[in-house]
């Protein structure tokens, strides 16, 4: 089971770029890296997913180095509405159907 480690909390200001790094040292060859966002009183929602290098969509970018032992979620020009908990998950590569969440990173955007 690929365990992930990410900061418990982060603060940033509106308009800045925020980078949240997740460590996953024992990621397997066929594992994907997926990030979710959770607002208060809501279920998590999918943000972005990647396998290697860089992935970008309308919400965020995901940077994955060649060794894939870590990944960085990048949120460009954050606003107050980006205040949420962000979870990094590593796919289990078909070895198990359990999908386990960690505690996530609580991001607080300040005005």
């Amino acid at each position: 089971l690929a365990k992930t480690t990410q900061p418990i909390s982060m603060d940033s200001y509106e308009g800045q770029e925020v980078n949240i790094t997740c460590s996953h040292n024992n990621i397997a060859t066929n594992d994907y890296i997926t990030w979710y966002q959770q607002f208060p009183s809501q279920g998590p929602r999918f943000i972005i997913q990647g396998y290697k290098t860089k992935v970008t969509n309308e919400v965020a970018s995901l940077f994955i180095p060649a060794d894939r032992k870590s990944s960085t979620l990048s949120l460009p020009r954050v606003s107050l509405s980006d205040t949420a908990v962000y979870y990094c998950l590593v796919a289990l590569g078909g070895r198990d159907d359990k999908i386990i969440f960690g505690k996530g990173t609580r991001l607080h955007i300040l005005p």
Partner: protein
Amino acid sequence: NAGVTQTPKFRVLKTGQSMTLLCAQDMNHEYMYWYRQDPGMGLRLIHYSVGEGTTAKGEVPDGYNVSRLKKQNFLLGLESAAPSQTSVYFCASSNSGHHSYNSPLHFGNGTRLTVT
């Protein structure tokens, strides 16, 4: 297309009472999951199902039972509620259980349960 719908949204139980939480999805997903979330904690997996008629234990299964009689529904039961089961319960579904590419989890908006 409603996605994942959880019923009820709120419930207060007394210790020892029983109840069933209902999760329904209209995306024809094979895999369904029940999580609980306590204040300041991440989500912890209670039980999951890889298809109609199947269930399996997650990280914290004790005190809960589940059933998946129909593909679109996943029921979570508390036979004898305890204060330690006060939590927010989230249901999720996906097309592929091992989080394959382009098969993320879709979550409901949760059921807030208080056991007094």
